[in-house]
């Protein structure tokens, strides 16, 4: 079959080819559109990642404290969001919760998707953070308490610095996963890359070129996160520690 990469320079309403490949004066080409879709994908993914890291780390820490009620809270959170498929969770946030809590109807779907994706990933992150903390020798916690630090000081100055350095690789995987999982946002009307591929493919009948371009952008996004995480890992590495040189 013949390739038609010039389809990206076509204007989206009239299918005329624009010489500079970027529309001017209100016109948009498919290239404009794919870049805007990429922006949506990254926005959803990065905001959801921030939500996931904050909430997930908190829940992971709560699962390792001596107070049984906080452990129960952390466990319940993790199990609820881990056992429901992501797409079902997104539909729950978009269709079901707004019909139960009418105040949610005014919330834009972008925010609902960020929370859905963020909480789904936070369950996985909480599991990893818990594992990281529990992998430290028990003596670390008791030594910290014995020296006179309070529990939260022990976490802040002794346990978490080591635990987070240990779990950077799994957290990198989760960050990459969030880029990929953001593709389900198309089901709730977020104009991101997957929706672009489906819609533009249908309009131009050039499904292969559209899907290849979208694949490339997803790969670049996920790989960039991977490399950024590698830089962070090298910067924070402590020589002589687990994972250090």
């Amino acid at each position, binding site marked *: 079959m013949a390739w038609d990469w010039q389809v990206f320079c076509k204007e*989206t*309403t*009239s299918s005329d080819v624009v010489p500079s490949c970027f529309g001017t004066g*209100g016109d948009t080409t498919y290239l404009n559109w794919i870049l805007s879709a990429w922006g949506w994908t990254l926005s959803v993914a990065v905001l959801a990642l921030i939500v996931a890291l904050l909430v997930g780390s908190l829940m992971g820490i709560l699962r390792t404290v001596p107070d049984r009620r906080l452990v129960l809270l952390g466990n319940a959170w993790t199990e609820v969001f881990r056992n429901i498929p992501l797409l079902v969770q997104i539909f729950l946030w978009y*269709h079901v919760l*707004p*019909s139960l809590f009418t105040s949610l*109807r005014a919330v834009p*779907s972008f925010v609902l998707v960020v929370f859905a994706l963020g909480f789904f990933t936070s369950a996985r992150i909480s599991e990893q953070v818990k594992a990281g903390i529990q992998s430290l020798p028990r003596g670390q916690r008791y030594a910290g308490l014995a020296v006179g630090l309070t529990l939260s000081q022990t976490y802040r100055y002794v346990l978490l610095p080591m635990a987070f350095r240990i779990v950077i690789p799994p957290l990198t995987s989760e960050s990459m996963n969030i880029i990929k999982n953001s593709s389900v946002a*198309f*089901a709730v*009307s977020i*104009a991101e890359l997957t*929706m672009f591929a*489906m*819609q533009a*493919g*249908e*309009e*131009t*009948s050039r*499904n292969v070129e559209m899907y290849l371009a979208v694949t490339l952008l997803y790969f670049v996004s996920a790989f960039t996160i991977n490399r950024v995480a590698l830089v962070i890992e090298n910067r924070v590495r402590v020589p002589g520690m687990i994972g250090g040189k």
Partner: protein
Amino acid sequence: MKKSLLVAAALVAAGAAQADTLSKMKETAAVSMGVRESSGALSYTLGDGKYVGFHTEVCQRVLGDIQKKLGLAKLEIKYQPVTSQNRIPLVQNGTVDIECGSTTNNATRQKDVSFAVTTYVEEVRIAVKANSGITSIAQLNGKNVATTTGTTSVQLLRKHERAASVDFKEVFGKDHADSFLLMESGRADAFVMDGQILAGNIAKAKNPADFKIVGEVLSVEPIAIMLRKDDPAFKKAVDDSIIAMMKSGEIAKLYDKWFMQPIPPSNTKVGLPASEATKFAWANPNDKPVEEYVKK
């Protein structure tokens, strides 16, 4: 060297045989029909591998006629469900011999596949809640409009926004049922889609009287049965059969059966009479693409 030549020759022969659907049907006594799972009354599934609908039945009649023409004792029809995304590639690569769904005949697609004579002309309309007071597209300025991802209506709305300088917020459903739900639940004020899909969804709603199809016709699109390109013998056989149905009035009766009478599974009526454009297409069989309809 000789072996690879032999392999190449075999592949060429196989490729050539594929292009001629009629001889493939004769050799294998089987044909693959592409069907949709939920395209209004044109083509849908009752579950359990049963596919029905206006176009599905037209195709069954066409294949029956071709079976008689080829003199085959038996012709097995394999039903292959297709989606908007894969229907053209599947016809191109031979997995599907004849696609009987709701495919718009347009010039871009005619580069990849060919179409039988148009059997149904679709009009894109607006469905709204009856009490919303919206009667035309101009009143949608500033409102939320739902449409389905992967359909021609998305581009149509975009063109309309540009041309008429109206600004509305588009909400995309992942399929027609989802888009209707968006309108039903209030997330969207209107649902823009092919008239028969609107009528079908309204008929299946809990309270059909709560919804109305309003407004001017936004676009006229010929819907036709899709065939492989460069297979004139098969196209002629299909066209002859459909034209015979049009002349004998059989096609009008089939239309009535699927669009004006109660249909399975819920025994509700779609209630959409044949538009003038559809009747014109039956009286003057043609396979013109949508671009020629717009010029008129």
